[in-house]
């Protein structure tokens, strides 16, 4: 691979090859907590995308002013600010969703995914690259969240986005929308992704 990936490569990498959840195991808490339905999962993914994008842009803008030993402080400050903004906007305009997500929106502050992207990409790259990296990673994160949420919501309630898609006779697997379901689904999907990955790499070699 080239020394520093181009903006487009950054974008593509975030989606699958360096998927934040399945590949880098970053930000597992929200991944588990909010995936009992597609709606909260997507809301979370959008909030993360918003924060990540804003933070990446801001950091990239001020990247030349950063002092090495204070960079993490600046990252955290920036992230916390945007998280607060996202949180308040949700509370103001999507009140029910904000109630459902509860503390998991503010917990984005400590989501390593964002700080990781600031560190790896935004603090070193131009605004455009940083932004496309943010978008790529967010899409990857969103894909991960929605794959888990889809499994859990469909099996757990027979619905998708709250719309019934399985026949009424479907016995809801309540466990899927409860805490154990989150762990089991993520564990099994992670195994599946690893397995597919290993098949692919075996085929390649």
């Amino acid at each position, binding site marked *: 691979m080239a020394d520093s990936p181009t903006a487009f490569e950054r974008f593509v990498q975030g989606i699958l090859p360096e998927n934040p959840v399945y590949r880098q195991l*970053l930000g597992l808490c929200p991944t588990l907590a909010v995936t009992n339905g597609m709606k909260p999962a997507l809301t979370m993914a959008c909030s993360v995308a918003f924060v990540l994008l804003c933070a990446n842009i801001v950091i990239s803008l001020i990247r030349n002013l950063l002092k090495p030993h204070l960079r*993490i402080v600046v990252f955290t400050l920036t992230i916390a600010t945007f998280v607060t903004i996202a949180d308040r906007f949700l509370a103001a305009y999507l009140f029910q969703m904000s109630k459902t997500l509860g503390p998991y929106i503010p917990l984005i502050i400590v989501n390593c995914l964002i*700080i990781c992207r600031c560190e*790896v990409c935004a603090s070193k790259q131009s605004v455009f690259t940083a932004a496309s990296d943010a978008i790529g990673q967010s899409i990857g994160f969103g894909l991960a969240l929605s794959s888990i949420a889809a499994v859990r919501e469909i099996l757990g309630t027979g619905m998708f986005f709250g719309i019934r898609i399985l026949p009424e006779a479907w016995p809801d697997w309540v466990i899927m929308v409860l805490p154990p379901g989150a762990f089991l689904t993520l564990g099994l999907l992670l195994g599946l992704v690893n397995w597919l990955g290993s098949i692919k790499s075996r085929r390649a*070699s």
Partner: protein
Amino acid sequence: MITTTLAIAAGTMLVMAVVLSFILGWANKKFKVEIDPKIEAVIDILPGVNCGGCGYLGCSDYAVAIVTDNDPVNKCTVGGEACARGLADIMGVEVGEMVKLFAVVNCGAHTSDRLKTHEYRGEKRCASAHLVAGVQGCTFGCLGFGDCVRACHYDAMHIVDGLATVDFNNCIGCGACSKVCPRSIITITGFMADKIPTVTCSNKDKAKDAKAVCKTACVGCKACTKLSDLFSITNNLSTYDHAAYTEEHYETALKAIEKCPTNCIHFIGKSLGK
């Protein structure tokens, strides 16, 4: 009202920032603990997120492990490739070897070449079978239970007809296989050419005893040493000086291979295309 709120909020933040940076700065000076400058340099390169993704207890723990235990530099997912490169620079971990290293199995006996073999009913691993007498007559040669195969992370070692066989396309010469072989018959060898000659035997017994246990054992007959002085015989076993090999030894090696009465000299190395 609004301006006051704004002012107070800004003030609060400012005060907090000032107080905290002051305290921490003070503490940093006051509580300074001398550490290895190399570790410090490594800490500076690591992101400092302390996420634990590397499997260590935060960045400085990882830094210590890198410097003192020579642990791999590529474990930080947050820092990614750039970070690993920076760390490698500090550590001076260099990969550019002049000579390619490969594993060489110093045994050439496939199942049918081995004599006095007996059915073995025990743990099917070399390290264990090595402890039981009589699995096969030769006490030097490959047991073929593949401990080395399991140790290799690069899919470069396989058991072919009872004999451990290196896949030179995959082998990187890491030496994992040679560490686990209970019979110590795998050597990590520098290859001076794509293919080099070698004596695929480790049996140090006299000709009679060696012949009694293996069809392809080196019997120390000196046929090869007469042809090329890169062969030398110690303890009834011929060995080849790989480090001295150059292209011009090719012919003599080929002749030695022809002459060897037990067929235990071979050219090994990358198959050059099909």
